[in-house]
């Protein structure tokens, strides 16, 4: 089915146009005009409406790409940009929009340098939307790489790094991954032309450098996922970010790798290759265990959040490698719930951290006095821990049961890693709920109403996603 009008291009363009408007917005720090903030929020909400409309245009029962849009881009070499969506990509777009909207609202009162923050956030949103609607190898690669530019600027300018020269390593690391992917894309183009993503199964393993193309693709994607030995650069940056919006944006980066695997990985992997998957499972499990154990010991709440994000990303990666159709069909719902949960959890925990910094006080027991925050924190921690409160629950259950049925030992360790990561979060929640006289934070420091209302909407979305994942879609 082709797009009735260029609606997919539109959902890439709206945040981009929002970015251009934000660039021209006048900021008056003294009067707290929030011009750039308002433009950013308006752009994201406008795009959410468009995304809602796209959900109604597609047939959500099929896994095939729909609403194709094709643009002639280059003649030498002959490259067209193709856009299309399915359930998975739309859920990812929706999740990224909602989670970044949460982040934008969380930094509303960060007046200094708000304009560049909003500019790069909208650019990041536009590029990540482009990634999820890409339906051919070239447009996929362009947006895969394009995400780096605004993210790098966000991390460098707002990440709060005391030694920004270290970021060079992070930038180059991601660039190496992009170049490896670029090589694979050019090889695919040489032998198969500008392939659409639903035809990646045509790339043969035994012909036309297939043995180079597939590992290069896998390596290019895995550079984005914090799995050993690729975890260092991501963890060294993400775990230190103190701006919630930047943390969320940086945590969307591994999502692009996971999505790429879900999109590219063929079902017809030869036995010679699939026999090595066990090693990937082992490496993934060890990484999960180590990171979750460190999170359990570490007192830094931000590291606990980072560990939670990492552990679950690796779990989903292993789920994709399990080649189970049911898992692949439902991975979108799981990722949707997961992204929303980690984003919301980051917002509330960062809110606590900021109050702690602002009042130079210990935050132990803060939740006893801040009711709004307490409710949100508890709900989100339990949702993250795997309680049946969001779409994560059912789908994590599916993935874990599948992995348990394949390799019981690995499955057990995976479950253990998830439990430790959850325990780390619950431990932090109990610290905040255990009353402490040293804590001067009280009712006055509770979450502002506007932010609380929005977070309640997110909670509502999570609960509804558990009951019926696509509850908001009205069939035409």
């Amino acid at each position, binding site marked *: 089915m082709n797009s009735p009008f260029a609606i997919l291009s539109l959902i890439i363009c709206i945040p981009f146009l929002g970015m251009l408007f934000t660039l021209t917005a006048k900021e008056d720090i003294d009067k707290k005009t929030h011009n750039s903030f308002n433009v950013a929020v308006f752009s994201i909400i406008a795009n959410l409406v468009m995304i809602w409309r796209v959900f109604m245009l597609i047939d959500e029962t099929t896994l095939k790409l729909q609403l194709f849009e094709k643009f002639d881009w280059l003649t030498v070499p002959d490259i067209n940009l193709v856009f299309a969506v399915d359930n998975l990509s739309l859920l990812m777009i929706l999740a990224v929009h909602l989670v970044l909207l949460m982040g934008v609202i969380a930094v509303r009162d960060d007046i200094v340098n708000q304009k560049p923050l909003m500019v790069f956030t909208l650019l990041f949103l536009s590029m990540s939307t482009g990634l999820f609607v890409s339906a051919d190898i070239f447009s996929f690669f362009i947006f895969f790489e394009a995400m780096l530019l605004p993210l790098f600027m966000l991390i*460098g300018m707002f990440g709060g790094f005391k030694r920004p020269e270290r970021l060079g390593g992070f930038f180059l690391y991601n660039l190496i991954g992009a170049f490896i992917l670029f090589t694979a894309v050019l090889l695919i183009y040489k032998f198969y032309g500008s392939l659409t993503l639903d035809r990646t199964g045509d790339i043969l393993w035994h012909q036309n450098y297939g043995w180079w193309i597939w590992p290069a693709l896998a390596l290019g994607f895995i550079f984005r996922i914090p799995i050993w030995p690729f975890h260092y650069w991501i963890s060294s940056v993400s775990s230190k970010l103190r701006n919630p919006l930047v943390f969320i944006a940086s945590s969307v980066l591994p999502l692009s790798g996971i999505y790429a695997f879900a999109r590219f990985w063929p079902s017809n992997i030869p036995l010679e290759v699939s026999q090595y998957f066990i090693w990937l499972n082992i490496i993934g499990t060890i990484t999960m265990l180590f990171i979750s154990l460190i999170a359990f010991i570490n007192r830094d709440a931000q590291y606990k959040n980072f560990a939670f994000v990492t552990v679950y990303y690796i779990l989903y990666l292993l789920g994709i490698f399990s080649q189970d159709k049911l898992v692949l069909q439902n991975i979108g719902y799981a990722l949707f719930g997961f992204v929303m949960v980690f984003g919301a959890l980051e917002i509330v925990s960062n809110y606590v951290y900021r109050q702690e910094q602002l009042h130079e006080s210990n935050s132990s027991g803060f939740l006893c006095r801040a009711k709004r925050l307490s409710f949100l924190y508890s709900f989100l921690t339990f949702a993250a821990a795997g309680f049946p409160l969001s779409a994560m629950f059912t789908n994590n259950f599916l993935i874990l049961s599948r992995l348990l049925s394949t390799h019981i030992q690995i499955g057990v360790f995976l479950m253990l890693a998830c439990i430790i990561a959850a325990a780390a979060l619950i431990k932090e929640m109990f610290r905040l709920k255990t009353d402490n006289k040293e804590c001067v934070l009280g009712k006055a420091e509770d979450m502002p109403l506007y932010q609380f209302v929005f977070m309640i909407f997110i909670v509502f979305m999570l609960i509804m996603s558990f009951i019926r994942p696509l509850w908001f879609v009205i069939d035409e």
Partner: protein
Amino acid sequence: MLENWFILLPEIFLLGFFVVGGLVAKFRKVQTPKTFASLAQIFLVAVILFSIVFYNKSAFPLLWANTPLSTIFKTFAYLMAWAWFYLSSKWFLNKNRPSFKFYAVCFALLFGFDILASATSLISLAVIIPFICFFYRRLILRHWDTERVEPIAKAYGFFAAVFCLLLWLGVYIIYIQTGSFEYAIIRDFYAAEKNFAPTSLLAVVMIIGCFMFLLSLVPFHLWFIAAISEAVLPVCGFITLVPPLIYIGALINLMKGCLVAFTDFVAPLLCFFAVLSLLIGAFSANSENNIRKKFAFLSIYCIGFALTGMVHFSGSAVIASFAYMIIAILSLAGVYTVFLGLKSKGEYISDITYISGFYRLRPYMSAALLIFMFSLIGLAPTLGFFGYLSIINNLVADNSWFLMGVLLISLLFVASACFQVIRIIYFEPLVSKFDRADKAIYICLFINVTFILASLINPAWLISNALVILGGIS
């Protein structure tokens, strides 16, 4: 007869600037740098228009002949020169320095470039290259503090003389063997040869060596770096933005029209020096704290990259390199425009540490610089990606895996060099106060960025006609 005079109108206008400019300099009472900039721009517009009108007409076809290929290279070079003349006037205004001699020398060089790009005879090369070198030296010397640039001009003059002698020797050897200076006759003569005499190969090396010197490929690059670090900003911009396009155009013309039989011999030679240039350019850019030197190394890297992509001089390779060069020059033009805005207490800044936190005071200029640098790195979705894609895709199609690997590795070093600048501008605290930038700089940056963004949406729009013309040479 009259027709020939019409065809020579571009050259007449190029020389006409000396007469009119000289008269204005002598008789006009009120003279500002803007006067000569406007005059130069008017003459250059006429040159561009007449070059396009007579794109395939020639007054002296045995010496130089306009072809679509030569016209396209010349037109882009003239356009760059036009934009840079406009921007240079701001520098002269700020420094309150006379500008006539600068524009006059540039016009002399443009005249030389006009002939060089269209040359159809080795005698034209033998005459025009020394002419260009002579005025190049004059251009480097355009500094109020002559002592600073004199050693560089001397060194340049010495090496230019050596390479011109080699060029003459090479041309002479070929003349002895073929009995002619004409490209077409020489091409046919060597096409019939199965084995080349060592003297023929030596002659080719001498001629190509001269081009390597002109292109400032490593190891013939030291004069270029020294000139960029010491010469005045208008000179730096001109020698970075205008000549490379012409030299590459002339080299393609020479290889396709005259020395085509030697392609297999020249390719590895050129490839070696091109790879050396891109590697040295990329590595050295990382260690430089002088921002001008940093970008001088990056421009050497760009030339190396373009040559690496076209060493076999096939149609598709030439197209790819041309696309890359245009994009690289556009990005470098943007960078040099920003340099004109990097001014503190009336002095133009060249030390990288002084631009720390620049974005806090000049956000739009910093944003433009960011786009140009990401374009130089070739990061999608900037236009630079299109240039890299063209060249690397061509190498993949030719199974040139080694070259592709070298290009990608060098690209990482370039990214690292650009990261240093980005980090200092965006992530470091503000240390200096900057003077207010001229509106013209913002206008030029806006046009350049718009051009880059518009071309990104539809790159074919940028060079589709150029590609059709270049496609004809395969």
